[in-house]
């Protein structure tokens, strides 16, 4: 088990290897497909971005509404593949970490190697548990997108597994081999 701090500096990213289990503490941002599309449009147009991408970690999540008194509702990962078309553009601007679930395209893995970024999986179906690791949540952009708006989160001991590291090692490819009969 490794404790790491977000945003991720390049040294942190290089220290992570496929198969590591980690606990993340620090500031991360939420974005799904609709928000990614707008961020990429802003990059292309040179207009201001909702947050600084240098070293940033994005969590692919669309939470349920919080009950009164809760910081956020259930907040487990969504399928990362839907962000594949946009992720390389964000990495070129400094994005260092992505948290989601499911496979990534080879083009995303190549961008991770080129820009020193890491991909982690949070547990799909553990939305209530992950919600408890989120201590602060604030919508900072694209409020009209509802559950897909961009939020700044402060997380403590957020559990995740390194699936694809910045060297291109992919646990989804290597691990099932070991347990196949």
């Amino acid at each position, binding site marked *: 088990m490794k404790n790491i701090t977000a945003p991720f500096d390049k040294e942190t990213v290089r220290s992570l290897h496929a198969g590591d289990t980690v606990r993340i503490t620090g500031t991360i941002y939420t974005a799904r497909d609709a928000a990614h599309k707008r961020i990429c449009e802003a990059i292309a147009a040179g207009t201001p971005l909702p947050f600084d991408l240098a070293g940033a970690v994005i969590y692919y999540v669309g939470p349920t509404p919080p009950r009164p008194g809760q910081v956020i509702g259930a907040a487990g990962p969504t399928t990362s593949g839907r962000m594949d078309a946009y992720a390389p553009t964000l990495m070129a601007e400094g994005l260092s970490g992505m948290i989601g679930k499911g496979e990534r395209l080879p083009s995303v893995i190549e961008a991770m190697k080129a820009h020193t970024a890491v991909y982690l999986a949070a*547990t799909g179906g553990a939305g*209530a548990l992950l*919600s408890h690791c989120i201590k602060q949540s604030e919508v900072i952009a694209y409020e009209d997108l509802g559950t897909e708006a961009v939020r700044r989160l402060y997380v403590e001991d957020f559990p995740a*597994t390194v699936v694809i590291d910045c060297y291109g090692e992919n646990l989804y490819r290597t691990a099932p081999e070991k347990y*196949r*009969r």
Partner: protein
Amino acid sequence: MREISVDLIRDAVAALAVKANTVVDARVEEALKTARQREESPVGREILDQLLQNAEIARATATPICQDTGLAVVFVRVGQDVHLTGGSLEDAVNQGVAKGYTDGYLRKSVVRDPLDRINTKDNTPAIIHYEIVPGDELTITVAPKGIGSENMSRLYMLKPSQGAEGIRQAVLQTVREAGSNACPPLVIGVGVGGNFEKCALLAKRALLRPLGEPSPDPAWAAMERDLLNAVNDLGIGPQGLGGRVTALGLAIETYPTHIGGLPVAVNINCHVARHETVSL
């Protein structure tokens, strides 16, 4: 003739939607505990621990088990001696869904048109399956279904000559393609027979069977066991990160079919295998 007010149906649907989304099915929780014992992968064990902890937190705080609180799939079995009063059955079911998803702080994930993608904001309409049966009871099952696992479900129109081996390959191929996307450990519903749409509905109904309960037909029960073992031998493991536990259960529902066909549907579900029932 027995009279049932549609208001009762609305309130029942609302309550079932909230319960299904916040309380992990007791059999699923048991199965997760057993799976935790036999999982060989350390990462897999860690994930199963998280799912068990998640179930406790969800129950204690009425937080949804998963943020994808799904499309509301509703099965309504109406006794033919029931007379519904006070309005339309379909409206009552949809009002119940809207109430449950709004008052229960569940996520609204329905768009009104597949292309314009505008959110209906109350998770309606539900997907409703009606059945008319003898008697004067009305039974409602609410089975919210997430899209991550639904997207990985498949329908195959096999040739009769492909037989049992064809069914086996269809199931294994579907699970392999699903990989990590459907949040394993999975619960798998298989439909065999009927025609194109009947087969898909059989697979969906197979997901309603209490987890672990075998088919009443011994031959199909044997195939369920065999397929579950074969699925677990794929090594996909919890969350696709490798391990011996890829699925917690597999149920097959069958129906007579045409001399020229062998339809097979595989409806993939995750451990958030939600279905709650009430009889009025």
